[in-house]
């Protein structure tokens, strides 16, 4: 009965939180999996049975009890998952949670794994095709999947481990950066190690039906959205903090118009953020589809917000400004950042999913380079200037205003505000600025250098004829131009940054073709490889610095963050690239008088790389 109840919960998750293509069969042949009974009731029943077993000294009692307890602990997941009091963004002492039943479950499964079963006495056909025909069932009766016992136990153990981990770590989140770190590196990055059940459960646990986050009483989608935006562009964003009072001087009708427009764009923003938050717990294939869909959503958001922020400033002088006095469109800048980040993820995740053929790899890296460059520019320029503008506003504009005021209530109020700004807001702005510069920008800058170093290696492979990026499939029945645009279709509708044309790309790949003679090719190859090597050396140094930053900084990363693995994998990919370059350099120097010999004896082998963004193209004998 306990198992039935657990199945009931699994079906609930499959139907409500997963997509139809996922691997849980939801047809129930009209069987009732005890949906009307609470898990608590059955847990109690199991406890009583266990007592009975002990009192009556039943044969093999410890095995039966362990089995019963595993079932009982599986039901406890349903019984407690939404009631676990997560201290999300609660900066007070971390109250640790009682998650003992998960650890108990793990050890009970371990105990069962050590028991040998005599499977010959298990009755055959306990759920025969015959029964499947008899029940309400539109599908062809199937042989039941035969899952070996140990596989099943390992699977159950992994459920306890994964779920316990994501609950415990969620409870430790004290800042928005930690939330992002948790979602990106402890949920999303290892998502393919989550079972389908754990993934669905995470969705249930993370964003609740009432749109609250981890069931927090304080945080729902609305204020979380503000926090997320200001986490990049800094606190004190005028349009996000009490806009209504900034509009109080305006005519009623104007104010109402602006407010209703404001409510609209805010709702759109929440919709976009909600869309992105649902991505983390999905399987990697579904994530891509959601990100692709998200690009249209976020591109539209950008248009809406940009016109709102610009209008508000142009017509009424309301909104954040750079230190120079021009409008800085803070929210739009967050949207733009998010959008480019998604564009890059969608692009570079394709390697992991093995979507790209060798002839496309240069294109992907080139476009990735372009996006990373845009992202770095955006962070270094606009985002930095926004925060500096806000700092300037608090440090000089408000104190000047105070000076001008005559003594009185207004002056005192402003003085009070000024004090608060200096004590609370300014340190926050500085912290955001530092994090953006020392970590975020560095991380993308290094990725950019790495992509470029990789492209130079690939260009060398092309120069000596080991690969030709200007040639598509052998018997292609369509044009390379069509293939180019099909590959980049998800990005094609994006206006800013500019979508590169096929002609742009043509110029780039033509430059990777062999030079007019052996000597020039040799010269060019040596140049490319030297430059690639020096780029890689820079990346290695930068990644070490980033890892040091993560180690020192406890406020922005969760304590068991897998972000470390992420960067270590980059470093390992650099090792691999350096090895490949070493080998290629050797071949080039051995054949420097006739480089065309190389491609007669060697070919390229394409594998997944260590880091998911860096595929491994190695040169191997034919």
């Amino acid at each position, binding site marked *: 009965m306990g198992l039935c109840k657990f199945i009931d919960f699994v079906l609930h998750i499959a139907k409500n939180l997963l997509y139809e*293509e*996922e*691997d849980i069969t939801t047809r129930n042949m009209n069987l009732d999996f005890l949906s009307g009974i609470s898990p608590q009731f059955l847990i109690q029943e199991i406890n009583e049975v266990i007592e009975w077993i002990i009192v009556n000294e039943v044969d093999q009692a410890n095995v039966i009890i362990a089995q019963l307890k595993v079932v009982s602990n599986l039901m406890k997941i349903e019984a407690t998952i939404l009631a676990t009091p997560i201290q999300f963004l609660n900066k007070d002492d971390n109250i640790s949670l009682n998650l003992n039943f998960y650890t108990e479950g793990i050890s009970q499964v371990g105990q069962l794994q050590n028991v040998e079963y005599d499977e010959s006495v298990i009755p055959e056909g306990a759920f025969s095709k015959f029964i499947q025909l008899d029940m309400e069932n539109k599908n*062809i009766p199937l042989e039941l999947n035969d899952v070996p016992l140990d596989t099943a136990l390992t699977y159950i153990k992994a459920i306890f481990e994964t779920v316990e981990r994501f609950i415990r770590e969620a409870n430790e989140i004290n800042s928005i950066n930690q939330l992002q770190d948790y979602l990106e590196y402890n949920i999303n990055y290892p998502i393919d190690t989550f079972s389908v059940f754990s993934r669905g459960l995470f969705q249930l646990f993370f964003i609740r039906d009432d749109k609250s986050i981890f069931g927090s009483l304080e945080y729902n989608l609305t204020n979380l959205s503000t926090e997320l935006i200001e986490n990049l562009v800094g606190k004190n964003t005028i349009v996000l903090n009490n806009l209504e009072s900034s509009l109080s001087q305006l005519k009623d009708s104007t104010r109402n118009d602006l407010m209703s427009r404001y409510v609209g764009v805010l709702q759109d923003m929440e919709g976009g953020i909600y869309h992105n938050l649902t991505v983390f717990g999905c*399987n*990697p*294939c*579904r994530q*891509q*589809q959601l990100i692709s869909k998200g690009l*249209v959503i976020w591109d539209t958001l950008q248009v809406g917000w940009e016109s709102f922020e610009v209008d508000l400033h142009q017509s009424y002088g309301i909104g954040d400004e750079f230190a120079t006095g021009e409008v800085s469109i803070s929210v739009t800048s967050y949207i733009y950042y998010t959008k480019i980040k998604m564009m890059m993820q969608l692009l570079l995740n394709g390697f992991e*999913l*093995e*979507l*790209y*053929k060798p002839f*496309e790899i240069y294109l992907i890296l080139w476009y990735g380079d372009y996006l990373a460059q845009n992202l770095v520019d955006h962070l270094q320029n606009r985002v930095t200037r926004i925060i500096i503008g806000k700092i300037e506003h608090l440090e000089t504009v408000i104190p000047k205003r105070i000076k001008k005021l005559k003594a009185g209530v207004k002056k005192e109020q402003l003085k009070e505000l000024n004090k608060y700004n200096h004590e609370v807001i300014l340190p926050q702005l500085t912290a955001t600025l530092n994090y953006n510069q020392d970590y975020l920008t560095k991380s993308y800058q290094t990725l950019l250098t790495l992509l470029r170093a990789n492209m130079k290696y690939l260009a060398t492979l092309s120069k000596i004829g080991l690969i030709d990026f200007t040639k*598509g*499939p*052998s*018997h*292609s*029945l*369509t044009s390379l131009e*069509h*293939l180019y*645009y*099909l*590959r*980049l*279709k*998800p990005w*094609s*509708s994006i206006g800013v940054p500019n979508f590169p044309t096929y002609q742009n790309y043509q110029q780039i790949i033509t430059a990777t073709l062999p030079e007019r003679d052996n000597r020039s090719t040799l010269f060019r190859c040596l140049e490319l490889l030297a430059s690639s090597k020096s780029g890689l050396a820079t990346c290695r140094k930068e990644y070490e610095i980033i890892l040091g930053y993560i180690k020192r900084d406890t406020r922005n990363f969760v304590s068991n963050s897998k972000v470390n693995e992420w960067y270590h994998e980059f470093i390992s990919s650099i090792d691999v690239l350096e090895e490949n370059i070493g080998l290629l350099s050797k071949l080039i120097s051995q054949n420097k008088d006739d480089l065309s010999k190389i491609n007669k004896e060697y070919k390229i082998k394409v594998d997944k790389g260590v880091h998911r963004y860096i595929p491994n193209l190695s040169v191997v004998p034919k």
Partner: protein
Amino acid sequence: MSNLLRTINNLTYHRFDINDQDEFKQISKLIAIHLSEPYSIYVYWYFLNNWPQYCYTVKNDKSVIIGVIISKIEPHREVRMRGYIGMLVIDPEYRKMGIASNLVKLTIENMTQDNVDEIMLETEVINEGALKLYESFGFLRTKRLYRYYLNTHDAYRLILPLTDKAHTRIAFLPQLPQEQVT
């Protein structure tokens, strides 16, 4: 022999004859034995019945069907015409002789004449033969589909783009004229 399209290496390529019960039976058998995915008979009956002109068979000198390709053409979200290759099977004894390539080419040629914007299909990530075959014609892997097949393998969605519409996002395409949609 009606519906004969061409003869290559003593094998004859035909358009499916909807009135021939035996052909249907032979095709069903070939599919049932050699495709990993268990298709219900309704699935290919649906294809054959609605788009018989897009089913081609290959017969040996004893008039036994040793290869078949089944496809359809439909408007996709009312904005572009999509050809879809549903099934392709060659009897193992006749594989690696270029028969599948011929069938795919035949299908693409006919679809091109019917002005499709793209041709699509799905295949398992581990089906190296099929991937190599389609990709050599220019099909691109546009999506990876999670555990698409019942035997729990992922699949790729492959697309061969033939017109500009194939690479324009749906939201930015005008509706197809009414006569093409219905």
